[in-house]
């Protein structure tokens, strides 16, 4: 299975541990990746606040590049996926697409409306299939209780993200956690907002959201939280210390990127997964999994 790989800015920026772990997992599960090195940022919904048309042009540009390769796009970020899905729906309108193509002509590109973008989570669950993932597990994550945290842009708007056609996406993360041998921990915050988008605007509210979700998951017995969104990771991991200060309680809940959790179960070395890069130590997760996992960190 071959994909046009769109790693996004943060997997090589604020979360440099995500890119290598995602590539390692892709290789392990047999995905062939051709990176879209010339593609730009999606705009993350932020650029769109001041210029939505420019945002659609940037994403159409990426879609045109993938179309040229004849490959579906693989994303590893809920936000990239959501913003692309939203642009994809708007660009179905032929007249609008032609206006955007007028801009893309500058670089000799044109988008025909055929691109497909898919998050690694959906590829693992839908294209590879959980039975095959299960069969690839060499180190079942037995005894590990993991709280899923989807990231808003991978769940809403559900119509834009294909939930009507694929209602099973609703529990994709929980089912993947189970397939890896771990136990999913249900908590109300799993599809709520992590607060990252307002971090520079209203840090108090952003940190309050971190506190609420991590504490909630912890109180329900989670040993770790897993997220397919690196922006959620930046807040849930990066600002958890501030959140603890706010609620005056010890939380220390390790936040894992999706490919890190998958990688551990597939026997990828924790060092390759860069598990030592988090602000909240992931060591308790490795300790729980036993000596094989700890080796190499």
């Amino acid at each position, binding site marked *: 299975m071959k994909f046009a790989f769109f790693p996004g800015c943060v997997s090589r*920026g604020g979360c440099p541990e995500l890119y290598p772990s995602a590539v390692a997992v892709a290789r392990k599960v047999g995905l062939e990746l051709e990176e879209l090195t010339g593609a730009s940022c999606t705009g993350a919904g932020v650029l769109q606040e001041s210029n*939505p048309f420019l945002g659609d042009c940037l994403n159409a540009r990426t879609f045109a590049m993938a179309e040229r390769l004849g490959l579906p796009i693989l994303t590893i970020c809920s936000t990239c996926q959501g913003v692309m899905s939203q642009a994809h729906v708007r660009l179905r309108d032929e007249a609008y697409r032609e206006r955007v193509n007028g801009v893309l002509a*500058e670089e000799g590109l044109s988008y025909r409306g055929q691109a497909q973008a898919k998050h690694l989570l959906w590829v693992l669950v839908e294209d590879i299939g959980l039975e095959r993932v299960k069969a690839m597990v060499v180190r079942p994550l037995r005894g590990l209780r993991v709280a899923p945290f989807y990231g808003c842009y991978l769940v809403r708007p559900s119509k834009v993200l294909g939930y009507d056609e694929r209602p099973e996406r609703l529990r994709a993360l929980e089912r993947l956690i189970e397939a890896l041998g771990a136990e999913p921990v249900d908590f*109300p915050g799993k599809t*709520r907002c992590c607060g990252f988008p307002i971090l520079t*605007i*209203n840090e108090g509210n952003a940190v309050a959201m971190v506190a609420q979700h991590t504490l909630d998951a912890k109180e329900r017995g989670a040993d770790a939280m897993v997220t397919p969104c690196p922006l959620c990771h930046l807040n849930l991991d*990066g600002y958890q210390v501030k959140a603890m200060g706010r609620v005056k309680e010890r939380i220390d809940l390790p936040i894992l990127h999706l490919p890190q959790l998958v990688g551990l179960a597939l026997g990828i070395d924790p060092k390759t997964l860069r598990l030592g*890069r988090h602000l909240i130590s992931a060591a308790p997760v490795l300790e729980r999994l036993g000596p094989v996992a700890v080796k190499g960190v």
Partner: protein
Amino acid sequence: MRVTLKVRRYNPEAPHPRPYWQEYSLEVEQSATVLDALLRIREEVDESLALRCSCRSAICGSCAMRINGQATLACKTRLAAVAGQDGVLTVEPMGNLPVVKDLVVDMAPHWQKVRAVEAWLQPTGPEPEGEYLVPNEAMLHLAEVMNCIMCGACVSDCTVLEVDPTFLGPAALAKAYRFVADPRDGATKERLGKYTAPGGVWDCTRCFACVEVCPKGVAPMERIMALRERAIAAGYTDTYGARHTLAFAELVEHSGRLDELRLPLKTFGYTNVPQLVGLLPVAVRALARRKAPSPFHKPIPGVAAFRRTVRRARQASPTAGKQATGGSR
């Protein structure tokens, strides 16, 4: 079809009031709505169950409540669509509003915010003899936002209101947009100034929860985004929110990728010492773990051509350098 409604109940007059779950099982028609079932429970099983409803046609907005954890209108929701394979569904009062009794919440905070955005027309100039007349086309783009029935579903599920009750919230801000974008209104500039204050448009996390639950297609978050865009176009750029989006766009337009190190610096301003010092503890911890972007930010290959594309997009943009002229985003 047999269904079981797990209803979240609360009686303030109980000796020790606290919320609890109560289950009601009943036989219903395949076409029955959640409201049909609740009314039957109240009429035939348990007359103490409190709920609000009126039109039963998704017009009055009285019966908003959380069904399976998500706010919606009980009259618009068919049981067959929400009952699990075991026939069970949960019914709770709306979130983010104080519960009065069972499924009835106090809507006062919601109304107070609708008043706070001055959700009424403020025309300028001499009063016409008859009505304020506008061409039909000038109002068409407001059709969706005027569909709002003030049910409060968006308020219930807003992720910001969960942590900060002072946020104006999706319903009031959608209403605010409705007047900003009304060609008859004359207070646009003052309104935008007010809506960009703390607790206003920039406090929204863009989480899409309001868009997801709105039963009338108002898409409140999209209206908040349109207000942001109009506020920037009107010159309200000296807020962290506006500075953040403008800095983000500038950085991406320059190198094709986001320069994450420069984004907070540009947002806060290079001389904004207190804010920059505030970033230090997290920055130091991140650097110690090497969880940080490279200080040498690399542009995407072919960035010169990319920048030409951006320039062309800016020229072709409907909002290029001027205020948007309405239109649903």
